[in-house]
């Protein structure tokens, strides 16, 4: 089981308390689709992903970004049991959606950049360390059912 210090828990809660899910979620997903364009292959039904502007203005991308961030919220509320919290989602992504698990890390990286750009200097180095640990656990939980 992952061990969290009191400070790490506080950092994670703090970051989430400052997050606007309806902004950060969409921005993170848009960034992933733009910076790592191969990820667009999972979103064939989303309509126009032709260029950065189209992606940023695409309502389905925005809606799905929000869904993803609400999904992440569950890990924040269950930090001592992230693995089980995501067992079903992991099966869904592997068996139904066939998402290459490397992409979880890319989305996590994009979310970190969105948070850094929103929080500015308030996203300190030790906050970043706790946040990246949290995301690494999330990514690992989502990758679990793949093998």
């Amino acid at each position, binding site marked *: 089981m992952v061990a969290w210090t009191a400070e790490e828990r506080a950092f994670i809660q703090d970051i989430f308390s400052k997050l606007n899910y309806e902004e950060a979620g969409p921005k993170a997903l848009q960034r992933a689709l733009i*910076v790592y364009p191969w990820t667009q292959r999972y979103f064939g039904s989303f309509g126009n992903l032709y260029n950065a502007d189209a992606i940023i203005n695409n309502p389905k991308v925005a809606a799905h970004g929000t869904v993803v961030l609400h999904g992440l919220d569950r890990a924040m509320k269950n930090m001592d049991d992230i693995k089980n919290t995501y067992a079903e989602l992991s099966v869904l992504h592997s068996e139904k959606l066939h998402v290459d698990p490397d992409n979880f890390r890319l989305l996590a990286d994009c979310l970190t*950049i*969105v948070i850094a*750009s929103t929080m500015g200097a308030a996203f300190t*180095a030790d906050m*970043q360390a706790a946040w990246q640990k949290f995301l690494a656990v999330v990514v690992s939980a989502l990758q679990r059912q793949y093998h």
Partner: protein
Amino acid sequence: MVQWSDSERKTIASVWDKINIDEIGPQTLARVLVVYPWTQRYFGAFGDLSCASAIMGNPKVSEHGKTVLKALEKAVKNVDNIKTTYAQLSQLHCEKLNVDPDNFKLLADCLSIVIATNFGPAFNPAVQSTWQQKLLSVVVAALTSRYF
């Protein structure tokens, strides 16, 4: 050879223009040492790295952060020739400093985060694509190139 469009060249120049080496360099190296603590092993001579505040306030970390970012300028000013530009630095890091090349990517990631914290929304997805996904990848590859 890596191909750069005009718009990518402009993006790189414009990002570099806004970077204050004396601030961004220290913040980046400090972040690496805090977030990826094993990297501290390369800096035994730097004194107190015992906790985040020690690292953030350490003057040797700060100086070296500036050195690293000044070296990045060479890539920014020679985007068509990054591999050759970094041939010697690559050899130095491999043969003399014995740095695990995976760490170059970690430094590049922290640099992108520091740029994001400083630039805010101006570090938009298109800029991140060019700067991080492309330029820094080429830099990391060039620094790794003399390892084998």
